[in-house]
């Protein structure tokens, strides 16, 4: 049922917990694959480049954020693939999941309050609303 699992990650504590859940769900479907998606948004891309001298380093810091998640997947012996995408996190994840016909999207929630959410917008809410497949939101 869950062959293609899209795991959205930003390297935070929440995405660690999301990974635990992803690995767990992957273990119940034979031959499933986790696609670890890390979205680089424009504001990050700028600060990453400004605080790192050359582009090789930039890729390194991005990879380091995903590495922990990758490590967890490796230890659990599940199939996985890392995808680094560019764009605004919410729409990029939705677009990726819908185009690749994911069976489930797993995403961490930052737990914003009502006002923060109104101003900033919750990525997990956007994804839950617009993705065509079921979405697992992990706190």
């Amino acid at each position, binding site marked *: *049922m869950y062959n293609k699992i899209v795991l959205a990650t930003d390297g935070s504590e929440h995405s660690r917990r999301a990974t635990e859940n992803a690995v767990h769900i992957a273990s*119940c479907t034979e031959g499933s694959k986790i696609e670890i998606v890390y979205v680089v948004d424009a504001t990050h891309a700028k600060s990453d480049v400004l605080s790192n001298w050359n582009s090789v380093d930039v890729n390194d810091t991005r990879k380091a954020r995903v590495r922990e998640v990758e490590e967890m997947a490796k230890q659990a012996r599940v199939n996985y693939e890392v995808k680094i995408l560019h764009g605004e996190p919410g729409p990029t994840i939705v677009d990726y999941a819908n185009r690749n016909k994911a069976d489930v999207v797993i995403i961490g929630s930052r737990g914003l309050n009502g006002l923060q959410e109104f101003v900033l917008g919750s990525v997990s809410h956007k994804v839950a*609303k617009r993705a065509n497949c*079921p979405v*697992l*939101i992990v706190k």
Partner: protein
Amino acid sequence: MYKKILLATDGSKHSIRSAEHAIYLADSFDSVIELVYVVGGEKSKEDVLHSVDKYEVKREREEKLRPIQEQLENAGLQYNSHLLHGEPGPTIVKFANENAFDLVVVGSRGLNNLQTMILGSVSHKVAKRVSCPVLIVK
């Protein structure tokens, strides 16, 4: 990891699909499903005014749960049904947080932005306020 699964239902098509997901997970992880149907305040008034007696009301509500219960029985799973009263969102959240669930499965009606703003999306409220992972099924 998912030993105790809450499945929120309103007897709609979406909740039949959410039940399929809950069943799949419960089957893989050997978990117990707690089936929850919330009777809202407005609905409860309507039900009473429109039907003959209170037994009729009770029967109608149980009928809403019936298709999902059959699904669960056919899958041979362990489950309990709960009929709760109150506003759907907060009632599900309260029940979920008080009973320490490992996973909440809820269907989404797929309202558009304006509808969500006015009516409020139950699945969004649940996803926001429940402390365990929430699976939203379309």
